[in-house]
């Protein structure tokens, strides 16, 4: 059976994606910074879905360890889902370089470091799927998502380039841009119910799009049009707005 690697499996969306693929009888490899936190999810997946599931320590910021981490995976995953990300209070980050740097390095540098390795492997095999969870926040820079948004913009651009590079090599790359999602990351923000999805909905939509080999996926679909409108506002006007 095919195997899926979840990078960032302690996040709410990571958990939901792992369960969705397990329910479709994929074997699961869970990776996160703190491996011991993954044990309950591992037992849960094995008992519920009867698939095999392993846990692995992975730190997005320890670039030098990424190759050893990926090479040690057995079997080598057929699908790699990159879910990890970091969102802190932007006002805090703006005045604290260390926080800014960690956000950029988690959301962009760390993701590029591991996905380069995964892509090299898949290109060599001429087979494989990479799914990157970016964000609608990367579609246009806003004061309220200054660092997070720009790091996700870089990640979106990377995924788009990677898709272009991998197309001839029979490797599928999908960019996922969720809008508002009810997660621990957003627990303290007031979110408009009609525009907000649950992690389980996001995972279900991602799985369907994976089957259909989609390139860029907005979750939910109407975010594509919301972002279209936001992107069409002229900059001289946009800069005066509070968003």
């Amino acid at each position, binding site marked *: 059976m095919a195997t899926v690697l979840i990078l960032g499996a*302690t996040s*709410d969306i990571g*958990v939901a994606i792992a369960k969705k693929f397990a329910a479709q009888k994929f074997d699961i490899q869970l990776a996160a910074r703190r491996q011991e*936190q993954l044990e*309950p*999810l591992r*037992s*849960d997946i094995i*008992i*519920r879905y009867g698939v095999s599931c392993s846990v692995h320590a992975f730190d997005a910021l320890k670039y030098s360890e990424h190759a050893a981490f990926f090479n040690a995976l057995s079997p080598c995953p057929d699908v790699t889902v990159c879910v990890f990300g970091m969102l802190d209070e932007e006002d805090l980050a703006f005045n604290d370089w260390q926080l800014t740097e960690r956000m950029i390095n988690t959301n962009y540098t760390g993701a590029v470091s591991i996905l380069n390795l995964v892509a090299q492997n898949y290109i060599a095999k001429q087979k494989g799927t990479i799914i990157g969870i970016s964000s609608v926040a990367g579609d246009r820079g806003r004061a309220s998502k200054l660092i997070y948004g720009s790091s996700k913009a870089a990640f979106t651009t990377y995924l788009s380039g990677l898709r272009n590079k991998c197309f001839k090599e029979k490797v599928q790359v999908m960019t996922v841009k969720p809008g508002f999602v009810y997660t*621990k990351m957003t*627990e*303290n*923000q*007031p979110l408009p119910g009609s525009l907000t999805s649950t992690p389980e909905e996001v995972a279900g939509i991602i799985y369907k799009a994976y089957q259909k080999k989609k390139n860029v996926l907005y979750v939910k679909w109407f975010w594509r049009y919301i972002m279209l409108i936001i992107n069409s506002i002229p900059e001289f006007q946009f800069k005066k707005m509070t968003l």
Partner: protein
Amino acid sequence: MKKHIANWGNYPVVESNEESFSFPDQLRRLMDEQTSFIPRGNGRCYGDASLAKRTISTLKYNKILSFDEAKGIFACQSGLTLDQILEVIVPKGWFLPVTPGTKFITVGGAVASDVHGKNHHIDGSFSNHILEMDVTLSSREILTCSPVMNPDLFEATCGGMGLTGIITRVSFQLKKMETSFIRQKQIKAANLEELIGLFETHQYYTYSVAWIDCLKKGAHFGRSILLLGEHALLTDLSEKQKQDPLRLPRKKQINFPFNLPAWVLNAFTVKAFNYLFYTKNFKKEINRVISYEPFFYPLDAILHWNRGYGKNGFVQYQFVLPLEAKQGLVEILNRISDKGLGSFLAVLKVFGKQESIISFPKEGYTLALDFPIRPGLLAFLDELDLVVLRYGGRLYMSKDARMKPEVLETGYPDLGKFKDIVRKYNPDGRIHSLQSDRLFLTSN
């Protein structure tokens, strides 16, 4: 984030800051802040038990930790709901040892309310099947407890409405079954006298419960339908059912999309409903083999059925009276019928013996009724409380949103002991709810 929350009765509604955790260290951090809180599961208790200015939700702490398919021992984190457990255990030939009338409750909630089911007279309440559990105290220490390990903590946590700490892990014994079907017997009783006789004749049935039409007077006072059930054996099944004897019921749910206006429920419509419910059974007795779903969870098929009571919400009133106090049952049903305050559901069941300090069940008859919130209702319920106490009964805290502290104190003779244990494990009183404040359970 601050939002308005309510439990199943939609009464009361309060503004609360609700936070969740997925890992023990996140819980430690949440408990670190010096503010007080109450743990909260799926919000299916009816009143104000899991409401407070700050609530800590267990819903994301919901992983299955182990399942011994040979011995039927199941362990999970406390935020897992019973419907998810059923999906895993039923195909393997196991069932919940005790289940309430909804499967949308968390395991933590099942312990905190020490829920009972249609089999209480045979199998006791949920706590009778717990092997051990972890409770995270307000000091953030995690204690494992069972009937033999830290037994005082165990005793006060079962039925203790979350006041001893946050239940984080529960290990319990499941019940073996040959098929996922129920052999159901349905008997019509013309009045209360006949119903009580039927309960006695059929006391060896594993599952039993009765639906009473409490608006009927005279010779038909207490007109009702008694539902009895046993787990069906392979030999009970039809050829079609035998093809998949441990099948899970298909998910079919209707949503109640909005609150009904409060005037929809009045004496006339409730009478009509009860009439239809009773007379749709033409025969005196009906025997069928059906899926476990409609037998145990008839109302789960309608999501948000609580909206049927209107946006003001409702109170569910559940009490237990000792076996010898049948007259009390008559008196209470009479008062309700005289008042015409109406109820879709009046559910009667017999409890077996139970030894516990704060759990609701004790030997006797328990009756549960819904009352939409109306002017005059609360005063009327205060009157009923006095009748319940006069006959030596007590009320169920999981359903309660309004009883007075002295009603609890009279009904639960071990209340002092319970308060002492709560103080021992929750010494700074940081864990408290609207209900525990109202009932003086946690005030130091």
